[in-house]
């Protein structure tokens, strides 16, 4: 006689015998001849869920003779090969929970009617008891699994928190805020700030695929590598390339790391980014939102990857957002994704720093609903450059007076001029200084509208006005639709114009050049913008 057991879930019945030959091995040596079962030995027979024997046993009224079964069933064949003569179904509350499998009687006689009746009674009493035992075992296993997961979660959280920055960098003129919200299962998000050897600031935001302790360990390793490389390299592309080469040989199967590495020069707002398959950062400037677009393979997948670098300038008043996919890939109850459009909308306001983070998280919560369990880690890092530093050339201590954007509609240069004039009204500029500034602004804005916006209402120009102890600084930024303003155009010559040898037009840059104290033109190819910076001394010290 043999014992019966059952696993949870998938329906399996075991008979144990040792040593355990595979059914196939038994079949080749013993064909269909029942093998004698040693007293007290046990044999394992696995009945797949699809086997017709299960349905048969479920509804069988009592013990079933294996020899007489006419089922096209691999399990029946296996039972015969294992030497099972009689199968007694164990049914509890209408559910087949196991079988009692018996070999031939030791007397080699058939099982009698009395035997069968006894076995039926035994099975009816044993089945509920076995079911209870099964349930107890299942619950114990579940509790152990829960405990294991809880422990793993604690460890993963501990690792994760160990590597998040304890405090954010304090940079003059910059407002920095960060948020890390772990999902219950703890993903592999991270962010970090590191001072580079040349004084610039490295900012990393990354996401390890997978969750739990494995993800946390890879995150910790990536974090350490990035820190180490950033201490000697200053190019974000090189830092990522080196990190990738170090991570490839040790990356567990099916895991990789997406990471965006930005290098910021705080005094000038110049930012260089490289990207290993991570979400692109947003820059919000003068009411306009753009992405800094750099591409590259995630870290840890393939060796010898190169990472392109993209440069931009974070102007005064502009915001940058670095983020992980936990935000945009969150779902609402209807399984709709938060998505990029909602993120763009949420970024459309004028909040900055932690207020911006609050707004993003509030928007997300409103979308997912209060009962929502966060699916993935969410990491957000924002940088805002205060008004007041127009660019590197502006000395410390400058004060922003105004920033505004105007549609690129012809004629709006007049509006730009009037608003700049209003902004500097309290500075007490001498009338001729003010008039010169107004003309220079008007001419510069006109160029920006004509070449930068091509006169389109939907392509704006941005104007920033700042003042230092000695100068008024006006920056006019356009979208460079026609490329750079042609600064090398022919110098206007009145005599040639009067003689019809030159067109009457072409005075704009000439005027700007001659009435402002200094003009500087710079282009930001990554951002697709061109900026003209006008400087006008507040007092008459020199003549343009």
């Amino acid at each position, binding site marked *: 006689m043999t014992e019966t057991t059952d696993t949870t879930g998938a329906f399996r019945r075991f008979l144990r015998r040792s040593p355990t030959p595979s059914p196939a091995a038994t079949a080749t040596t013993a064909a269909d001849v029942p093998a004698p079962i040693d007293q007290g030995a046990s044999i394992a027979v696995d009945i797949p869920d699809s086997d017709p024997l299960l349905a048969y046993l479920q509804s069988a009224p009592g013990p079933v003779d294996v020899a007489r079964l006419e089922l096209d069933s691999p399990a029946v064949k296996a039972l015969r090969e294992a030497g099972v003569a009689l199968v007694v179904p164990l049914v509890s509350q209408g559910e087949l929970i196991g079988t009692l499998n018996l070999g031939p009687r030791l007397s080699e006689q058939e099982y009698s009617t009395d035997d069968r009746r006894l076995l039926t009674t035994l099975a009816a009493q044993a089945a509920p008891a076995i079911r209870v035992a099964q349930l107890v075992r299942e619950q114990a296993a579940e509790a152990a699994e829960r405990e294991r997961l809880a422990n793993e979660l604690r460890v993963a959280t501990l690792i994760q928190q160990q590597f998040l920055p304890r405090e954010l960098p304090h940079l003059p003129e910059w407002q920095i805020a960060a948020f890390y919200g772990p999902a219950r299962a703890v993903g592999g998000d991270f962010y970090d700030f590191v001072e580079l050897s040349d004084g610039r600031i490295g900012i990393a935001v990354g996401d390890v695929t997978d969750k739990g302790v494995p993800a946390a360990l890879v995150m910790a390793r990536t974090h350490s590598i990035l820190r180490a490389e950033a201490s000697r390299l200053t190019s974000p592309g090189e830092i990522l390339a080196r990190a990738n080469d170090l991570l490839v040989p040790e990356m567990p199967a099916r895991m990789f790391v997406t990471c965006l590495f930005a290098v910021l020069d705080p005094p000038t707002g110049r930012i260089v980014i490289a990207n290993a398959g991570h979400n692109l950062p947003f820059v919000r400037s003068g009411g306009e939102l753009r992405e800094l677009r750099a591409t590259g393979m995630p870290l840890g997948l393939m060796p010898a990857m190169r990472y392109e670098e993209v440069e931009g300038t974070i102007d005064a008043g502009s915001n940058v957002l670095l983020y992980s996919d936990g935000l945009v890939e969150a779902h609402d109850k209807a399984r709709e994704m938060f998505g990029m459009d909602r993120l763009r909308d949420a970024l459309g306001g004028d909040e900055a720093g932690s207020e911006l983070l609050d707004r993003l998280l509030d928007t997300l919560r409103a979308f997912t609903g209060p009962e929502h369990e966060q699916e993935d880690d969410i990491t957000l890092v924002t940088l805002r450059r205060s008004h007041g530093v127009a660019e590197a050339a502006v000395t410390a201590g400058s004060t922003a007076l105004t920033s505004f954007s105007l549609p690129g509609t012809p004629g709006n240069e007049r509006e730009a001029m009037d608003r700049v004039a209003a902004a500097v009204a309290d500075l007490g500029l001498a009338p001729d200084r003010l008039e010169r500034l107004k003309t220079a602004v008007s001419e510069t804005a006109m160029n920006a509208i004509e070449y930068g916006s091509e006169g389109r209402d939907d392509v704006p120009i941005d104007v920033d006005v700042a003042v230092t102890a000695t100068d008024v600084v006006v920056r006019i930024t356009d979208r460079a639709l026609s490329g750079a303003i042609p600064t090398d155009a022919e110098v*206007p010559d009145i005599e040639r*114009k009067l003689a019809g040898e030159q067109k009457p*037009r072409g005075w704009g840059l000439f005027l700007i050049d001659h009435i402002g104290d200094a003009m500087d033109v710079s282009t930001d190819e990554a951002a697709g913008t061109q900026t003209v910076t006008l400087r006008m001394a507040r007092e008459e010290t020199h003549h343009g």
Partner: protein
Amino acid sequence: MDDRTFGAQVDSIPDEVRVRMHGDLDARADDTLQAAYREVATQGSHRLTLDFGEVGYINSTGIALVVRLLADARRDGRGVRAVGLTPHYREIFRITRLSDFMDIEGDAA
């Protein structure tokens, strides 16, 4: 219509034709200024006075319009004089050397 909209009135007074302008002298003044000069051309006088007294704003496109008008007047043998320019626009006329080809009232001193 507001005080920025460009307008030009052509008056014939003894010995000269005077174009009194008002509003903004920019690209939008083109048609009006050309029409004004056509009217000037019908007058016999060889002295043309451009009165900028009511012009508050001139940009580089406006300068180009003045250059073209000046070229037309010179072709027609008319001497051109500018009056009513603010000190700033007198400076602009000096920088662009328009002042080399027209008399600017208030510049003589």
